[in-house]
């Protein structure tokens, strides 16, 4: 068990990291620790717990900007924003169910460090697109900042992008500035039932190519739809293909009519209104309940949307698995209880033609040690990745080996 250190100030974070460098030791950085199962297993002598750095230091609703300490709870961020009818448009999921934690435990720093995003990714981007700036301590034991509090900013390299999705392997963020947006006024979801994967994704693709401003598009095969808590979804015994429309009421209604007309060729058009609609997309966003949360391996696969159905068919010919599609077919969630090893190899060899990448989001520590958790990199890209790490954390002090061996 590593020793837990809980700083209350930026200065204390700096001191802890410098002391760790002095000791030639290493450190695991956590916010709430809700996603510790994501990544390769690695050993560190100490645990840097940032949960007490939890103050929202700036929130200006009219400027659409918030600055908060890295350990600020996402639940607090959401609540403060909701009071002003604002939200995080990248729709970060709550993955706690996946890792056996209690609900709503993630932090802002963890959300950025893992570059989370939800169904709205296809329209609005991921955490990386909303992180405007940060203050961090590098693995060299130096404080540095990048970016600022305004959206339009090309002053220097955009290190906010680099730290988004770096899983704490380059620097420990102590404070993050994010762009926030007005919450949508009205939500409606258009559904059709009974399409197979290929037809479902085809329907989503046609809709995304139309003028409907769809901001979420998912296809749930029958075996997944039955796990939904929404009655209209789980009682059909059929697959569900769904798109979400949001905006001013009058516009949402009109666009929903448009989707209905486009989907005339399919049977069983239905609409979900606000409450059920939000429920469905939360389930798709947080994934745990739809996958029934029993599987010992959960994979997240990002592909060109048009390749999604064929890729899954190919994988299915080798592995028994449950899958569903988000991002119009471009994001595949795959759960399997099958043989422990080799799943990653099968997925990744199928990806070679399609293009894209796969990440093992949940697996036993043994599996995460023997199978590549993150997509293996070509030699030139690995060299560059290693070189970036060398320049931020030469002594391998911060989360060493969490993403790739030696990084």
């Amino acid at each position, binding site marked *: 068990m590593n020793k837990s250190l809980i700083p209350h100030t930026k200065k204390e974070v700096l001191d802890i990291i410098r002391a760790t460098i*002095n000791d030639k030791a290493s450190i695991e950085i956590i916010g709430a620790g809700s996603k510790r199962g994501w990544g390769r297993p690695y050993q560190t002598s100490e645990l840097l717990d940032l949960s007490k750095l939890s103050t929202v230091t700036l929130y200006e609703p009219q400027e659409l900007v918030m600055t908060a300490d890295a350990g600020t709870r996402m639940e607090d961020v959401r609540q403060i924003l909701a009071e002003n009818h604002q939200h995080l448009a990248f729709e970060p999921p709550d993955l706690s169910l996946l890792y056996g934690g209690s609900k709503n435990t993630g932090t802002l720093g963890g959300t950025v460090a893992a*570059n989370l995003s939800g169904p709205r990714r296809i329209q609005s981007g*991921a955490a990386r697109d909303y992180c405007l700036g940060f203050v961090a301590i*590098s693995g060299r034991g130096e404080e540095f900042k*990048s970016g600022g*509090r305004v959206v*339009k900013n090309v002053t220097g390299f955009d290190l906010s992008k*680099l730290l988004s999705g770096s899983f704490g392997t380059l620097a420990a963020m102590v404070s993050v500035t994010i762009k926030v947006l*007005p919450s949508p006024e009205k939500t409606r979801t258009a559904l059709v039932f009974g399409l197979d994967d290929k037809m479902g994704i085809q329907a989503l693709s046609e809709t995304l190519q139309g003028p409907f401003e769809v901001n979420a598009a998912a296809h749930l095969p029958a075996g997944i739809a039955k796990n939904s808590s929404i009655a209209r979804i789980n009682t059909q015994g059929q697959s569900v293909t769904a798109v979400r429309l949001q905006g001013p009421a009058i516009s949402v209604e009109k666009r929903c009519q448009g989707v209905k007309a486009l989907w005339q060729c399919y049977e069983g058009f239905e609409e979900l209104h606000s409450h059920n609609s939000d429920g469905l997309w939360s389930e798709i966003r947080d994934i745990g309940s739809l996958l029934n949360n029993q599987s010992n391996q959960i994979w997240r696969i990002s592909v060109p949307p048009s390749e999604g159905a064929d890729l899954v068919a190919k994988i299915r010919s080798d592995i028994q698995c449950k899958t569903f599609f988000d991002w119009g077919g471009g994001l595949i969630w795959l759960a399997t209880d099958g043989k422990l090893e080799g799943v990653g190899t099968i997925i990744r060899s199928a990806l070679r033609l399609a293009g894209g990448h796969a990440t093992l989001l949940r697996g036993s520590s043994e599996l995460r040690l023997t199978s590549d958790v993150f997509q293996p990199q070509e030699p030139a890209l690995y060299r*560059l990745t290693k070189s970036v790490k060398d320049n931020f954390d030469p002594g391998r002090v911060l989360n060493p080996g969490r993403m790739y061996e030696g990084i």
Partner: protein
Amino acid sequence: MRMPTPDAKIISKRSIIVERLQQIVPRGAFGENVIIDSAGLSAYECDGLSAYRQLPLVVVLPETTEQVSKILKYCNETGVKVVARGAGTSLSGGALPLADAVMLGLGKFNQILNIDYANRAVVTQSGVTNLSISEAVSAADFYYAPDPSSQIVCSIGGNVAENSGGVHCLKYGLTTNNLLGLEIVLMNGDIIKLGGKHLDSEGYDLLGIMTGSEGLLGVITEVTLRILKKPETARAMLIGFDDAALAGDCVAAIIGSGIIPSGMEMMDKLAIKATEEFVHAGYPSNIETLLIVELDGPLDEVTDLIARVQNIVNGLGSGYIRVSESETEREKFWAGRKAAFPAIGRITPDYYCVDGTIPRARLPEVLMRISKMSQKYKLRVANVFHAGDGNLHPLIMYDANKLGELERAEEFGTEILILCVEVGGVLTGEHGVGVEKRDLMEKVFTEEDLKQQQRLKCAFDPNGLLNPGKVFPTLHRCAELGRVHIHHGQTPFPDIPRF
């Protein structure tokens, strides 16, 4: 502006370098691909920041990624600097040549490679112009959202290097938010593919870090972009105010009410007058400040939002609102704004375009202080802003033929930028640091901030050969930046308290 001292040894080896480049990039169907004569070189002596000029050592125009790789590998091994150039429209001197550097032009990378509607993506070579991408997908009612003013000529690779914006980025984001993939070549010749038609990079977000890296990290040869369906309707509103502060309040109130217009521009009296005389866009002449607010989306949504904006405007007591009733009229509203820079060019021998960003709420205050500075420096200034995202473009008017006016204009610009930083903003919103703002970087960043950015450059270009002298005020060798200081055999941080 001091550039690094040219390396005489490299300059003396020019003929050897030229010979090697000619081997890598042989003469093509349209003539020489290695330019050495001074007339040919002079076409490359500056970019959009024309106050700074320098003939490059030699210009090479490769036609394939493999040639780019060979050129960079050769230059890396022989210690020759390289400056990459797209269309040369940078307003900050990002593509300013160096006397001892090979200029690598990407003009021959001019093919759109693949249009993929099912995945809503376009794959293109990096020298293709921004506008031609939208034109290529226009028949299917798609477009590429970022629209910098130079979109007719600027290259998409340059857009990536500068993270270009445009009038519509308030709603649709900057280049970085519309980019899916890149093919880049590193100084050591490595060809690396980042991203693709899928979302999110695997591993570190090197796609994100390449965007806005101003040609310091790698050479971009291929770009994969997200394309969007054209909005069903777009309508623009002209809103006039007698008081700039009220216009600022209006911008804040629109955003505060939850509306994100697709564009929200502001012009001051001088800019309105100059453009009206130039293009006759129909702007009112008796107001202090003009807002152009564009709303797009489904017809009913646009109608609804226009009514809401009208309510806000009426509440603030504007005396002037006009809503475009046709596509022609909408284009006419924009024609004035788009011609604002050349319009100012007609009323002054020279002008200096400043680019800074501030928090929106500080707009009235910043405007007032710019007006005071104008009196202090005895130079006129016209203000054109991307008001929706707080991006200012004051145009300082001067006459380069009058002794000291250029210097005074630059000082004026610097004071505006320092003010931007002081109120919580930044030095550049979309034009880049380049050489123009290089020496102001210390106003925003600490020494350690800048060193950490330079360490990132070291990861990509350890010999510091790609576009040196840009962005960073002080050049450090990578060996020095990578060093961990240990004195007298002590630990790196000897005085750290135990936690």
